């Protein structure tokens, strides 16, 4: 009797483990299949962009698509530069991006330092007030700002693309949190040694918060690279137009009103390339900033 039970148990156990094992393998295969399929879906537009950008317009229009260009047409890229005036667009975007990032960083660091390190009346109320403005959609500000910059005579200048967005409450918040993590003793030690606030900020706080500062820099640059609505409203002239606005214009239409897709895709690829490079080399910093923000660009 007892032996029988034992035998049955052993049988059951081996059956169960076998079933669990096959179940595990099937699950694993399904998991990988799903992930690889989704990865292909995610990557496909990038592949199609590059594939299309290298085709001749005739090949692009063929009823049976080719999955790699029969003749690689690098000339589409120079064509894109020519028709869409990409050089100027890149230059404008870089100028706006670099200047606004530098100024924005200065403002952010000084404000975060004041909130994290200095004592002043009304500090908590002011900080809470700043955080509250983060809830309001940006569109609400744009309506008035459009009038304000018009009154200031800033239309179609670099200034209008830079100044209104220099202060980011979110970045101030992010950096302040980082500053607060630096032990108070470091500040006291520096003070006993006669270090000025600015020197302490420069020599200790900024180096120790460098990862956050890099994250802010990247996100801010990406923001300039991707901004569309505001530039279209206030600086849509050829001298100051930014890259995204140039893309969605009418530059790629031919005389017949047909879009020159290969050249357009080449332009899109050129615009995406810097972002891609930033992503490859600085992914860690982007993820760091993004996982705390949820704001794109």
């Amino acid at each position, binding site marked *: 009797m007892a032996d029988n039970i034992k035998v049955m148990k052993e049988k059951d156990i081996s059956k169960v483990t076998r079933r669990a094992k096959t179940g595990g393998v099937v699950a694993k295969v399904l998991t990988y299949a799903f992930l690889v399929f989704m990865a292909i879906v995610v990557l496909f537009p990038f592949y199609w962009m590059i594939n299309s950008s290298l085709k001749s317009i005739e090949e692009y229009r063929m009823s049976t698509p080719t999955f790699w260009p029969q003749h690689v047409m690098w000339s589409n890229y120079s064509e894109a530069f020519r028709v869409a005036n990409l050089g100027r667009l890149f230059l404008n975007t870089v100028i706006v991006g670099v200047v606004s990032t530098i100024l924005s960083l200065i403002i952010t660091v000084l404000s975060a330092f004041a909130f994290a390190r200095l004592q002043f009346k009304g500090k908590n109320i002011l900080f809470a007030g700043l955080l509250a403005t983060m809830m309001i959609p940006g569109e609400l500000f744009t309506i008035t700002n459009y009038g304000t910059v018009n009154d200031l005579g800033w239309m179609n200048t670099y200034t209008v693309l830079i100044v209104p967005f220099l202060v980011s409450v979110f970045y101030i918040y992010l950096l302040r949190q980082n500053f607060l993590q630096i032990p108070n003793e470091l500040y006291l030690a520096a003070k006993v*040694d*006669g270090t000025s606030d600015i020197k302490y900020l420069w020599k*200790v706080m900024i180096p120790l918060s460098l990862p956050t500062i890099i994250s802010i820099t990247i996100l801010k640059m990406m923001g300039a690279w991707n901004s569309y609505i505001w530039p279209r409203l206030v600086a849509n002239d050829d001298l100051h137009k930014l890259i995204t606005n140039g893309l969605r214009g009418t530059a790629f239409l031919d005389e017949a009103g047909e879009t020159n897709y290969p050249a357009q895709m080449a332009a899109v690829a050129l615009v995406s390339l810097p972002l891609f490079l930033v992503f490859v080399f600085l992914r860690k910093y982007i993820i760091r900033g993004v996982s705390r923000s949820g704001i794109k660009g």
Partner: protein
Amino acid sequence: MKVVLQNVTKIFPSRNKKSKESVIAVDDFTFTVPDGKLVGLLGPSGCGKSTTLYMISGLQKVSGGKIFFDDDDVTDLAAEKRGVGLVFQNYALYPHMTVRQNILFPLQNLKGDDKLSKDEMLDRATTAARLVQIDELMDRKPSELSGGQQQRVAIARALVKMPRVLLLDEPLSNLDARLRLQTREEIRRIQRETGITTVFVTHDQEEAMSISDLIVVMKKGIIQQIGKPQDVYDDPVNLFVAKFLGTPPINVFEGRVANGTLYIGEDAVLDVGGVEDREVTVGVRPEGFVYDPAGSLVCKLTGIEVMGRDMSVVSEKDGKVVRSIINSDVTVDPTLAEVRYTLKPNKVFIFDKTTEERIRF
């Protein structure tokens, strides 16, 4: 250089907004740190010892009273102008700088006439590093150093600007036991070699006793006693000081004085002529017991721990544990039900039951 504190007081406003009461962290503090001496501020946490240190450094302002460095009144002088070196409990080393950069940092702040050339700075940094024996580690980051090494870097950083006063906040509390022993000798040596007037804060009486020229025992913002470690140990002014100093701690009994004799329970243990009849608290140092089969103090024996040179006899008197240290040449039979002691008069202190002040006899 001597440091003089004159009626120094520190009051913190209450954190609780409803109650207007403020906290007196340091109350009417007067004492002098003699030139070139090592002084330990000793007390349990919250006694105001760190606040005192911070007021000497200038990082905290006094609420009342004055502080002098020699004859200079530094009460209103900012921290950076006092020329003090401060070593923090957690060392506060800059984590992104190498040891060398950390030590150089205070020198790079010097301005005007005090400004040093690059070579001079490096020279000073090397000297300071050599003094604390970390000159091999100059290119490491703090995270690559052990606790004891970080401690030395912090001291070197404090010493490099040749401070008039060196202040150490709980310098040994973050080190393990073995390192603590070694480091306190090290601090003593460095202090002797440099001759800098040094004040340090600790809650560990053994630490304070072992290296200080002078200890200041504090409780709740009030100085209890100032003196040489051995003097304070041998002659405490109240029960708090007696209990705070010494390991194992002093044995405390309820007792009474009747007709010039001190009683613990029913045992007449000591002649204390001159003290009027009253109830008292009796403190007996562990080394104050003499094993004596004819002794008058009778305790129930519970255990014997031999620790080499000495042995510790654990017994009970009226439900209280009594721990005595006895030379291990004496043999005590562990099977005995009770032990008897006579007491060394200079190791017995009696205190008023309510004020806990010492009653001398």
